């Protein structure tokens, strides 16, 4: 699997647009409804079996964007899957059925951004306390937001 071949293959997947410019990584913009399928494709067909990380970016008025980085270690191929949830939207399909490493990362993403991952086996907060109010990494969450006292 060469990067060129992977780029061609990815471009044929439903709901996926491959960004043109940088040689590495391959950046694939995915429609939210095709999110789980794109992850499956990356793992099964492109051989990206190594899960590096999952996170989100808060683009303020444009809503949240989920970013996933997976690797094919043998072919030295890095693929970045991204999906825009849309303004005000906070639901996204969970990719834990494909990558088990996404379990804790999606919990962290829920904790910090309030993204609800549909199909996650254990959707709880992970770093903050269960009774924490709000999601700190949202741009609307001020640094000096008062919080419940430490226990």
């Amino acid at each position, binding site marked *: 699997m060469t990067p060129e071949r992977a780029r061609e293959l990815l471009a044929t997947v439903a709901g996926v647009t491959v960004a043109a410019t940088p040689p590495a*990584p391959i950046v694939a913009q995915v429609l939210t409804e095709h999110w789980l399928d794109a992850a499956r494709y990356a793992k099964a067909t492109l051989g990206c*079996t*190594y*899960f*590096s*990380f999952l*996170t989100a*970016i*808060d683009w303020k008025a444009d809503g949240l964007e989920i*970013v996933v*980085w997976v690797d094919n*270690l043998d072919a*030295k191929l890095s693929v*970045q899957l991204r999906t825009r949830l849309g303004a005000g939207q906070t639901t996204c399909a969970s990719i834990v059925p494909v*990558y*088990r*490493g996404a*379990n*804790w990362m999606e919990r962290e993403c829920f904790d*910090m951004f309030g993204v609800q991952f549909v199909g996650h086996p254990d959707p709880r*907060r*992970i*770093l*903050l*306390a269960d009774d924490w109010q709000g999601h*700190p*990494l949202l741009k609307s969450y001020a*640094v000096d937001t008062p919080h419940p006292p430490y226990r």
Partner: protein
Amino acid sequence: MPDVRAIDYAGSERLTMNMGPQHPSAHGVFRAILTLEGETVVGVDAVIGYLHRCHEKLAENLAYVQYPTIASKTDYVAAMSSELAYVMAAEQIAKVEVPKRAQYLRVLVGELQRIASHCLWLGTWCMDMGGALGGGATIFLYCIRERELVLDLFEALVGARLLYGFHQVGGVRYDLPEGWTDLCRRTIDLIDSRVDEYEHMLADNPFFDMRTKGVGVISRELAQDVGISGPLLRGSGVDFDLRRAYPYSSYEDFEFRVPVETAGDCYARYHVRMVEFRQSARIVRQVLDGLPEGPISSRPGVKSLAQVKVPKGEAYARVEGPRGEVGCYLVADGSNKPYRMKWRGASFSNLSVLPHILVGASVADVVAIMGSVDPVFGEVDR
């Protein structure tokens, strides 16, 4: 008081046991809620977050010149690698050249840091497994003694022993003081010979073999799926090291071997790290031999917060730290602060494999397995 006659001694009764948050083998604050059947673990709920400081929010509010020093507080046992990941990400976006001498110095401190970190891992792990090794604190004290020598080197170089602030965007902040290279060579030679001693102490020790061989096996498939990295990944038969796969900071100039073991158990991880001790020492010697003359930074020392501005863009810088892939995903918006920064902590991903491998192990093995994962909770919780 429960009626003793009501207890099912056949062992099918389930018991919930809290391990942590203040358990000495947790190497930090980590709570594992174990469900036991007799001595066997049948369920694990890992609770983390006790050390959470929201580094990612901090980074959004600190300038590029301020944050590298704070970055060292993510993984405080290997501060050099997280600093490096952050400045590398900023350099990638801003297309900043780093002088050759600075690149070599980055490799030098990175490898010394690996030696110091592995010393701490070996010592604490052997102490966790305790009396079985014939006086568990022996290796711990020896390892701490050796780690101090490396920290002395860092102190002479930077002025700090644990959290350094050595890297800056464009290079490094300090050059080697006079006489430092000789001191470094002597230290490395000494530690090299001491590592042989530790191996002699542990080799053919039947207790050590029993506690580590076949314990906590991580399959190659699980290793990749969960995204563990570093010695854990290489102990599970995956031949992947960022220093060789994606050389950064002139790693392509140096010769070193990447150890790979296929067993995937605690012993395999131990063996990988023991080889890495020697390989790091080898790289340090090569750096000292080939250290080029020249500037140590392409940018002047820090004078103001607005000094480093990074244009709009994104980058993901990955560094092979002592515990594995330390990644910094940076989104810049053209100001002097990042728009978004994500830490991919090696310990976080490595620790998330625990629920998969602890089921079926005995309580005593939990301690051995946790130690072999070598988590640093500053990096897990960030």
